[in-house]
């Protein structure tokens, strides 16, 4: 049997009912242009579902690592060897005792149901049915879900979805409203979804990251967060910050240019900024705008030193002449006899600059 058409509202319910009535076995493939979803039927009963961004084996892996605390390297091999055969994977998991059969069944049913319900939200795209008998490897833990119950649940959820989507954006970062001690023991994500999510909040990850990295499905996460929002336990981080997070993420994607060239250009750019600031600060601001203040301060700082140096040199000269009966030829003569110090000579030599400055100011005043 070949069944195909365009997705629109409520058509999926009709398709499901048709397939159930006909007791057909095969895969219903949905495509909304971005994502692809698959629902597997066996004799008209739903036995598995998958969506390319949410699939059971991923969620199961995370569940085992996070909640059951099984070392990831231990089961990574197991998952790799059963790639594409979820049926034997689930059998193996039960056999190895990682999970009890009932628990595994509950997990698979819950995830599958969530995935199917999320497909009901798709309003555009195409569907196509491939009847195929070779579907046993796709069935996890022999679950059975009747389409009536799924349709009813999905109908209920559509409204809720819209409500939740309007208050939760996938890029929003949530933070806790109160400071309280986080519990260290593991919380069952299915029994206490909200509490589990509340503990996961780190104030840095957007909702998107939760969806991709947690063992819960998108719907369960939204539901949990929505509940927390209703209880006022969490608040979204301001839009501005969330948006900048998003922008940075996009930027990260764009930063695929050559690191050497961007390193060099950043370096040159910042050195340019440094030069500009130093130019503005040192030359424009301090040496031109505040030139008078700077200069006068400098002069008032060195003038006393100059005067005392002058006096020292004067006394030294007098001493030299009195003692050696000749005038000193250069300042070196005075220094050679330890009559004056380097410091005195330095400040003495500055006198000329100060004098010229005084003349300049005097001229300014007279004009």
């Amino acid at each position, binding site marked *: 049997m070949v069944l195909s058409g365009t997705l629109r509202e409520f058509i999926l319910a009709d398709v499901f009912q048709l397939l159930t009535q006909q007791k057909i076995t095969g895969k219903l493939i949905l495509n909304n242009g971005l994502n692809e979803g698959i629902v597997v039927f066996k004799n008209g009963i739903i036995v598995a579902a998958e969506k390319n961004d949410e699939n059971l084996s991923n969620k199961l892996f995370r569940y085992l690592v996070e909640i059951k605390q099984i070392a990831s390297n231990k089961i990574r091999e197991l998952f790799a060897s059963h790639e594409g055969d979820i049926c034997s994977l689930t059998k193996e998991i039960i056999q190895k005792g990682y999970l009890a059969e009932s628990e595994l069944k509950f997990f698979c049913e819950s995830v599958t149901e969530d995935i199917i319900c999320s497909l009901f939200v798709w309003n555009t795209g195409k569907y196509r049915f491939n009847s195929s008998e070779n579907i046993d490897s796709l069935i996890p833990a022999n679950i059975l879900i009747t389409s009536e119950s799924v349709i009813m649940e999905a109908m209920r959820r559509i409204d809720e979805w819209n409500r939740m989507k309007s208050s939760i954006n996938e890029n929003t*970062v949530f933070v806790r409203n109160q400071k309280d001690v986080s519990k260290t023991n593991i919380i069952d994500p299915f029994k206490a979804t909200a509490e589990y999510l509340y503990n996961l909040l780190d104030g840095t990850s957007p909702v998107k990251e939760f969806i991709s990295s947690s063992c819960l499905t998108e719907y369960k996460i939204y539901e949990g967060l929505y509940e927390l929002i209703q209880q006022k336990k969490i608040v979204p981080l301001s839009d501005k910050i969330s948006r900048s997070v998003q922008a940075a993420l996009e930027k990260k994607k764009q930063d*695929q240019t050559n690191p050497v060239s961007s390193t060099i250009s*950043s370096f040159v750019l910042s050195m340019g900024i440094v030069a500009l600031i130093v130019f503005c*600060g040192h030359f424009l601001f301090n040496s031109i705008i505040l030139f008078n203040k700077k200069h006068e*301060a400098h002069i*008032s700082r060195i*003038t006393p030193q100059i005067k005392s140096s002058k006096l020292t040199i*004067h006394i030294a000269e007098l001493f030299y002449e009195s003692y050696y009966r000749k005038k000193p030829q250069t300042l070196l003569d005075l220094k050679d006899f330890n009559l004056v110090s380097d410091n005195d000579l330095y400040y003495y030599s500055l006198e000329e600059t100060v004098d010229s400055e005084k003349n300049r100011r005097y001229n300014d005043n007279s004009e």
Partner: protein
Amino acid sequence: MNQILLRKLFLLLIISNPFLLYAGNSELFWSDWIQSAIISRESFFRSIEIIDDFKLDKLNSHQKSSLIGKMDSVLSPDSWHNLLYGIIDDDESDNYFSKALHNCRKDPGTTWLLFIEFTKIKEKKFAENALKQLHKLLLEAGAQSSSLISQQLLHFAIESKSNKTEALEYIKWAKLFDSFSIQPEQKEFWISFPVSIITKLKYFISSAFFFNGHWETHLRLIYSLYVWFRNALLLFVLSVFSIYIIKYFPSALHFFADLFPGNVSLTLRTLLVSSIMLSFISFGFIPFLWLSAFLIWRFVNIKEKTLLLCALFFLLLTPVDAVIRNIYHRTLDPDSVAMIFSGAVREGYSEQEHRKVYAYCKNNPSDYLANLTNAIYSLKNNNLVSALNYGEQALALHPHDPVVQTNVGNIFFLNGNFDKAKSLYKLASDNGYVNAQFNLAQCLFHDNKTASATELIKKAALGDPENINRFLQNNDEYFTDNWPSLRKIMFADYQPKQFWTILVPSSIYSGNDVEVLWGNSFMGLSSRNSFILSFVLYAFLLIITFKLNNKRNLRITFECRYCGRVICRKCKTGLLCNACSDAIKLVHNEKTLHKIQLSIWSKFQRFRIVRERVLNILFPGAGFLLGEQKPYWISLILVSITSLIYSFYFSIVHDFIIREGFSLKSVFLTISFSLYNLIFIIKQIPLFIKN
């Protein structure tokens, strides 16, 4: 360091330039006398053809006879003839030398030059006589000291460096000629350095803290202590700021670091942004420190906030520092009225200084100190009329000042108006002014009330035994019963305590000069405005620290779990920084993962440890404060001690090495004081080897 190098280069250029010589005309008491004495000596020596390199103490008989022939034509031989006769004629030399001294008994310049010649030909006794005669001349001129003679005597002390007792002898004379100056004491301190610490310390402490001695000495000592303390505070503030800048700039500037392309290494981005921030120093140091304080404020914890607030408080006080430095500079400026006044009281008449203060007085007729100084100079120049005129003006401007009262009283006394003098002396001595008591006694002597006068002098001598007794002793030694008029009374100068209470507020502190000195320290704001602005900023920081503390604050930045670099929620991948998460992206094996984490962590840890060690060597304690491996208080105390010690190094280098030049003693000093650093370096070496 760089500046010193530049200075040296600059000096090399100017030092050999002969045109820069001659520091201008004499401004000191007696320098005119000495200069004219030099000229007359020169003309005498030229007239008998003795030129530059003529050694007077090694004359052969031929030279002697030719010199006598040249000098024979003189009818009335002056000091120089007598000196030369004395040198030539060994038998009559004492006689001639005495004549030489007698000839110039009214001429301090020639007396001084004779002292030099006597010293050169090693006539110790006559050299001493010359100095005694000079001292008598000093007292006759109504002076107590002559800084010119004192300083030149210090040069003699430097010349005779090898002979310690001789040097100390010269210093003793230098002290006699200027008992107010700190320089002889300093020279004495360094000549007998390690031994002198205890003896001189007493002098320095009593001068600085117990307000003994002259206000200039007191101010110099207080100021050098202040500079030491100020530099220590400066170092402390700078080290605290640099530590927290190193520690928190990466967090504070992370937002800006993220503006660079993400594929540039985070370390480089942080460095670039930090260097951009550091370039704001070019706007001025104080604004930069405030800026960085505000930048890092939200990241520092409460303990560090207290320390930063403490450092900022010292920064707040910089305008006060400008005021103190201004007081020092203005006071010790040789052209300041206070210094000229002090010179007028202590030294004899100097035409230059008189002219200076006269001009100042014309421009600022309401300055009592200028009027008083003018009066004293007029008095010492025997111009009693103008002395009285200016003195009365000074008294009218500042009637309750005991120093004015005493000095104006002196003018009345020398004018013969004893009643007026007495009433002024009484006012001053009621304020406990010892010199006024002494002068009052002189008035009583004049009224032939010998008994009460003697009583008063005894009382005055109890009040200031050193000063009064020296005055009396000198008078007895040089003038016996015939005291010259200027030696009958004592002039009054301010005491160190009065310097702060009277002199500073009335004529030294000047708001305008403080502003000039403050200059562009704070973005061109005036010192008052910048103080107000700093205060507002400070109050703001206080408020946000203690009032808004419990506001829920969101952590904006985190430290990467592997390398510890600062990241934010925008630039991280998962819980790690981009670099670290790239390093482990393709690794799934737990063990390799752990190994990579360990290597990244130890690499950055090593960098941190090296940074702390280097800091601890450069500035002991700073590394501990940065790394927080030692208790907070211990590292804080270490940093404070280091600041004090480094400031001490600076003073040593500045006061000793630059002034006195390099010598064995200075090297010894430098080494002994750098022991502190040495200890820290040695302590760090084994730790370096271990890593």
